């Protein structure tokens, strides 16, 4: 998919993170401190946020949304649609977006959708929001993206516990003068590399048929499994391709792009992607040190964490790119000049 959707304005972005921090060096007691230090030095992640006492993705997105609507002086009744992008919903049914419609006080005339996506989800959420605006039925769309993923991490899985953290976000889009140009990709043949297996019999068969296991990586039903080397190979292969396609489609030179906001997998992957993209360090921000990889929230949270710095620079030509579970990946070009970007709130 390569599509330009005209007349869209990204009006505001806000993040929300749990107050509770897991300092990774403290895991040296549980695992080998030498290995813990090696992982910290490679990933650039010193601590991650962990929601406590049943905190959910919806709680974080709800707080981010209230903050955003208040700062933009928009009343909830003005919102025509809410999209919730997450892999950690409130319940199997109903959709969390519907529960958030009520919780945020949106009108019952609003429409609500959940999108079950991870690290590429913010781009897909923007795409869905832009289509709703472009379709004519909506004037304002609220996009909530976030995950409280830490309950899905097995206590023995040191690598994932040292990378993934919880966060939520809210983004407000409305009719405007700018274009959003999307390049989107899907490859379900890679589903086996990143998943939370269920106990369903056909899932057990899928795991067996696809030989999803290796000496170092346990597959546990109900817990997140990731084959890091396959994901690295995938990201290095595909991310530069979609960004190049987006540059060509927009007739942009890479030197003229103000900012490349990539999914914040970890410092190490971002460094290699930046080298492959052949762009300066200043143009590819990393914001993983104290929050880790926050899945669908990572792109808006990066903007939110960098809000002061972003006030000093042009945001006319910004490329955002998400990639991960699915496998699914996508990039979007946007003008964020008029976006009000708020510092994250802590819950």
């Amino acid at each position: 998919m390569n599509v330009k959707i005209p007349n869209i304005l990204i009006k505001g972005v806000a993040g929300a993170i749990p107050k509770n921090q897991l300092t990774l060096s403290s895991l040296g007691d549980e695992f080998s401190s030498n290995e813990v230090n090696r992982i910290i030095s490679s990933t650039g992640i010193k601590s991650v946020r962990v929601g406590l006492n049943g905190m959910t993705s919806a709680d974080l997105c709800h707080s981010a949304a209230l903050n955003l609507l208040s700062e933009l002086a928009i009343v909830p009744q003005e919102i025509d649609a809410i999209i919730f992008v997450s892999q950690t919903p409130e319940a199997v049914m109903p959709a969390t977006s519907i529960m958030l419609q009520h919780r945020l006080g949106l009108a019952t005339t609003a429409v609500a959708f959940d999108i079950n996506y991870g690290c590429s989800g913010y781009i897909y959420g923007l795409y869905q929001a832009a289509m709703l605006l472009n379709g004519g039925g909506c004037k304002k769309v609220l996009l909530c993206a976030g995950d409280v993923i830490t309950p899905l991490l097995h206590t023995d899985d040191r690598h994932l516990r040292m990378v993934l953290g919880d966060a939520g976000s809210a983004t407000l889009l409305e009719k405007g003068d700018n274009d959003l140009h999307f390049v989107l990709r899907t490859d379900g043949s890679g589903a086996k590399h990143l998943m939370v297996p269920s106990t369903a019999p056909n899932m057990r068969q899928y795991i067996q048929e696809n030989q999803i296991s290796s000496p170092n990586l346990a597959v546990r039903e109900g817990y997140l499994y990731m084959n890091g080397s396959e994901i690295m190979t995938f990201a290095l292969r595909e991310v530069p391709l979609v960004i190049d396609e987006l540059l060509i489609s927009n007739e942009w030179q890479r030197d003229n792009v103000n900012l490349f906001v990539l999914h914040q997998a970890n410092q190490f992957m971002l460094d290699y992607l930046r080298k492959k993209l052949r762009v300066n360090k200043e143009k590819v921000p990393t914001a993983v040190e104290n929050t880790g990889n926050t899945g669908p929230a990572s792109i808006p949270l990066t903007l939110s964490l960098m809000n002061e710095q972003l006030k000093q620079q042009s945001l006319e030509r910004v490329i955002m790119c998400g990639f991960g579970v699915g496998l699914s990946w996508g990039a979007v070009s946007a003008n964020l000049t008029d976006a009000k970007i708020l510092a994250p709130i802590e819950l």
Partner: protein
Amino acid sequence: METKFLAEISNLLEVDISELNKDFYLEKCDNWSSLSIVSTIALIDQYFQVSIPGREIEKCKTFGDLSQLIMSRST
């Protein structure tokens, strides 16, 4: 093999560059882990512009095996 690549691998494995000969046993190196395999994928991609899946790198027992794998893919 490019010296910069060898330097990066020796740094990754925390061994002296002079030890990285074809008989160097990756399997017996404490730092040859899933993390270093992910790093190796990226280093190979950076220095040789070739993408080798982790499952193939995992099969390499020695540094000689790894060098041979890279050479077979980058030519």
